């Protein structure tokens, strides 16, 4: 304790130098924490939006559908939807049928992906459908109403209420056609989806394809991503009774998004490490200067009976205190910056006009942070370790001082 007190007093010998080092350390920690939390917030929102509009946090496919995306690999979910819905943390289970085909209006024709859905269930979680006015929502599972991607609607030169025909190959290999009426249009911002999406009631799509009761995808949306650890093992357990089906996480189902996030986190980590290393060099410099300035005093301390180990401990204590104060100050500043970025955010609309897409998912132009407390704690601890690592060389140097030589030093 006395050694720590002495270390604390020593730190404030050169008030300006210590303050500059503290500010550098705290500011770096604040930057790392705040920018990580900003990325974390943006990615969490993107994952949430991606899973809700896409394949869910977890998804079940026929095992051969995953690689081939061939519509012949459908499956009958049986009681799976009800069983999954009963699991804690599951917000919605969404059966979907995907059928490639052709849509024809009186003027144009376009390739489409007919998607058979349970409208009410989709509306509860899909952010694009949720934003549609009630009179543009699908009303039944078997009706002839359809929601189109905004670009497809434009290309087919259709308007809400217009009729058009969908032609596709059914399960027997025959071409079948059916007339639908435009109920609404959605704009996801993703070109491929907006120009091919055609959403209808599941029963109508299944009947047209000759696949009654069958689906291609069972998307599971969780109340939050943290439930994935609980629900995924339960899903695997349930799928033991469905050997033809496989359960995937969103990272496996949406590899583009997962890889893009991974890559961005990796490059961010690299930048953070460089930043912290630069600051560490500053700490080494501060501690080394402080040791060299006290060369004679260290000689006296050794002469009056301190061991070299105690002197090394003194230097480490100074680094520890410097690291601890920076950790607390930096974390306080990091929390303040995170709070600001969460409440106010950064509006990219000032800089960019177009829709922002990342890894195949559109994201909100107002970037908002989210709290990743374990990471904040981890990076603060890492900085404390770096401060201690910065003390290794100065401490070795202090421990090698020979008292008789040091006291001759002026």
């Amino acid at each position, binding site marked *: 304790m006395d050694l720590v007190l002495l270390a604390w007093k020593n730190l*404030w010998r050169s008030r300006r130098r210590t303050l500059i080092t503290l500010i550098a350390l705290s500011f770096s920690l604040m930057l790392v924490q705040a920018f990580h939390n900003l990325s974390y917030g943006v990615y969490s929102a993107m994952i949430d939006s991606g899973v809700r509009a896409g394949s869910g946090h977890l998804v079940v496919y026929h095992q051969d559908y995953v690689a081939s995306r061939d519509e012949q690999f459908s499956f009958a979910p049986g009681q799976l939807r009800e069983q999954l819905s009963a699991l804690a943390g599951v917000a919605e289970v969404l059966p979907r049928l995907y059928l490639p085909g052709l849509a024809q209006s009186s003027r144009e024709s376009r390739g489409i992906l007919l998607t058979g859905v349970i409208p009410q269930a989709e509306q509860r979680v899909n952010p694009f459908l949720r934003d549609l006015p009630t009179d543009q929502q699908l009303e039944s599972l078997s009706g002839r109403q359809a929601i189109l991607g905004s670009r497809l609607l434009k290309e087919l030169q259709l308007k809400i209420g217009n009729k058009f025909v969908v032609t596709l190959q059914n399960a027997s290999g025959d071409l079948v056609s059916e007339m639908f009426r435009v109920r609404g249009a959605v704009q996801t911002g993703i070109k491929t989806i907006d120009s091919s999406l055609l959403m209808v009631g599941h029963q109508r799509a299944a009947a047209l394809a000759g696949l009654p009761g069958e689906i291609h995808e069972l998307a599971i949306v969780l109340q939050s991503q943290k439930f994935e650890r609980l629900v995924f093992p339960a899903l695997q357990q349930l799928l033991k009774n469905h050997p033809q089906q496989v359960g995937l996480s969103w990272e496996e189902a949406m590899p583009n998004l997962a890889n893009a996030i991974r890559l961005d986190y990796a490059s961010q980590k690299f930048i953070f490490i460089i930043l912290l290393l630069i600051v560490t060099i500053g700490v080494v410099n501060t501690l080394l200067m402080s040791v060299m300035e006290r060369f004679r005093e260290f000689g006296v*301390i050794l*002469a*009056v*009976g301190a*061991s*070299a*180990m105690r002197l090394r401990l003194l230097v480490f204590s100074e680094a520890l205190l410097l690291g601890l104060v920076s950790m607390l100050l930096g974390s306080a500043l990091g929390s303040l910056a995170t709070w600001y970025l969460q409440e106010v955010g950064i509006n990219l609309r000032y800089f960019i006009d177009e829709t922002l897409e990342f890894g195949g998912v559109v994201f909100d132009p107002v970037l908002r942070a989210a709290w990743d407390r374990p990471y904040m704690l981890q990076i603060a601890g890492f900085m404390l370790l770096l401060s201690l690592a910065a003390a290794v060389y100065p401490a070795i140097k202090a421990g090698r001082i020979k*008292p008789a030589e040091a006291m001759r030093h002026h």
Partner: protein
Amino acid sequence: MPLIELKSVSKIYPLGSQQVIAVDDLSLSIEAGEFTVLAGPSGSGKTTLLNLIGCLDEPSRGEVWLDGQEVGGAPQPQLAKLRLRKIGFIFQSYNLIPVLTAAENAEFTLMLMGVPKSRRRQRVVELFAELGLAGLEERKPSDLSGGQQQRVAIARAMASQPAVVLADEPTASLDSQASEELLALMRRLNREQGATFVFSSHDPLVISRAQRVVTLRDGRLESDR
């Protein structure tokens, strides 16, 4: 058995391609309770001899015995312990730790020994009263006069009740009146507490107050009276 015994001790420093003999084949015994001055001109080897007695330096040749123990080739951690428990140091330029108060400086060696704070403070209060420093406990060294700082240095050296106090030119930075007071004080501690004092000095005032004067010249013993 003498408290300090040097047997044919030499200390040679390398200086570039040459060698400087700071202490040359010197033998000396100092009994417990002595008040001894190592006198001699600059460069005569006084400080080197004090460093050898104080276990701050190793002899190139010969043996150094302290309180019945040979200290010449002992490992550093053992020498540090020996310095802590058996030797008190007083330096020419006081060498107090500037960030600590006078009392904290005085109790520094006790802190290193792991003595509890309350006992340390009690000992320092006693010493400060004896050394005429009462009331200055919370002052920083920069707020004390040279004489007061040197008395705090004496308190630091005496706090752990060492077997020997080594003082390297303790009056060199003081005016004559402060030197006189300091010498009287150390002599009193020597008489009343039986502490052994070994000084290095070329100050005639210090030499005149000494019980024994060992004069060195070119690293050799010139006289011992």
